[in-house]
């Protein structure tokens, strides 16, 4: 295995393009190192992107933010601007692992690991975040939703990597929230999760909504029926019931060591309902 730490995106792409064997990007390394040590993957090349300019920066951008691919959870959590605009995305990233993991874990890494249980991904789906992908042909910006394609699989080509996450601007009276279920209070992988983003009319009626669920299907899923259940409502009990039913219906989970199909289906709906209420309150809605 070779270890490289290029200082430009072009150098990084060049290294990846030139490598004929297996390569891995290293940002926070919280997944890559575990895979390395277990022998689960044996890459020929590891490219550390943290020394590339801009990778650890959070920059305002058109009313939203551009978040470098190597910005850690601890760094993003300390950024009041992002937290104010997209509290759900920040809390989702902050839920990953321990304080120690927070010192390293990144949105881009969480996304590229391809796990349907990745905490930040439902929140980014709900936020309709976009990512910049660098590759031999230059850079392109695509929706976050286009990246995961299956458990452990992404749509990125072998010499491509994500350089930044873009969180869009928000109108007033909008917010988001993320909740996940784990058996303990910390240190677990989500058994089910829900990210909800809402925009409200001045009277508190929901104008737009996005609802995404994690750990209930091969990839994180955006549940349009669930969002539709909220639009035009003030999130009253019957609306939330419709939301919950839509969420349960969208689940296609598996039985595994972390939870049963039945449990995931039930819990995803409960979390979506609770997250919707938190987002609603954050957006200034009152029932």
């Amino acid at each position, binding site marked *: *295995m*070779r*270890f490289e*730490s290029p200082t430009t995106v072009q150098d990084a792409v060049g290294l990846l393009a030139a490598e004929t064997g297996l390569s891995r990007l*290293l940002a926070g*390394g*919280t997944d890559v*190192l*575990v895979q*390395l*040590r*277990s022998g689960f993957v044996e890459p020929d090349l*590891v490219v*550390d992107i*943290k020394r590339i300019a801009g990778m650890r920066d959070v920059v305002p951008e058109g009313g939203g933010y551009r978040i470098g691919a190597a910005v*850690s959870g*601890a760094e993003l959590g300390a950024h009041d601007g992002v937290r104010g605009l997209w509290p759900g995305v920040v809390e989702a990233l902050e839920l990953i*692992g*321990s*304080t*120690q*993991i*927070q*010192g*390293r874990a990144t949105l881009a890494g969480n996304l590229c690991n391809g796990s349907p249980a990745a905490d930040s991904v439902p929140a980014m789906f709900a936020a309709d975040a976009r990512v910049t992908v660098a590759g031999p042909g230059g850079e392109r910006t695509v929706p976050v939703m286009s990246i995961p394609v299956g458990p452990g699989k992404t749509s990125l080509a072998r010499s491509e990597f994500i350089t930044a996450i873009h969180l869009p601007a928000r109108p007033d009276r909008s917010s988001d929230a993320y909740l996940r279920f784990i058996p303990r*209070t*910390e*240190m677990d992988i989500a058994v089910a999760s829900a990210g909800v983003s809402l925009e409200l009319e001045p009277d508190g009626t929901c104008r737009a909504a996005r609802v995404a669920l994690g750990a209930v299907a091969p990839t994180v899923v955006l549940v349009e029926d669930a969002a539709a259940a909220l639009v035009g409502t003030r999130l009253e009990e019957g609306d939330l019931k419709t939301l919950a039913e839509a969420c349960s219906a969208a689940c296609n989970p598996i039985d595994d060591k972390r939870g049963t199909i039945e449990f995931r289906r039930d819990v995803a709906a409960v979390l979506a309902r609770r997250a919707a209420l938190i987002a609603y309150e954050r957006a200034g809605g009152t029932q």
Partner: protein
Amino acid sequence: MSRIHVNTSVNGDALDFLCEPNETLLDALRNRLGLTGAKEGCGTGDCGACSVTLDGSLVCACLVLAAETEGREVGTVEGLADGDHLHPLQEKFLEHAALQCGVCTPGILVAAKALLDRNPDPDETEVRYWLAGNLCRCTGYDKIIRAVLDTAADLREA
């Protein structure tokens, strides 16, 4: 596969070592630099026994490649005491009997110091969540939490 020459700072000392490209910071500290205070309890970032700071940020040394530390500052449990003066956290852990077997203690001390450096007045819940990545199987955490809270109170008065 050739070894990588790394120049780094550990507890303020400029050090250099040769490491394999896939070698972790934990292995380099323990096997190359003779600093065995950081322990390997899991190797997957789930137990916190190898907690160290990297440029002041709390991390698991088992999840950092040694080669990544080029030009950066590493802090370990061996750097907590100032010469023969223990750090207040170390004193309080002894006073409160906040350790039994002691194998998680180095990681917990490094983590607790990182907390108090950032937040001089944490409440019990904040301490518990901050230390959630540091497993202790002996104490049930009670005396650890008390020792951290008591240290913070003393430091605020000092």
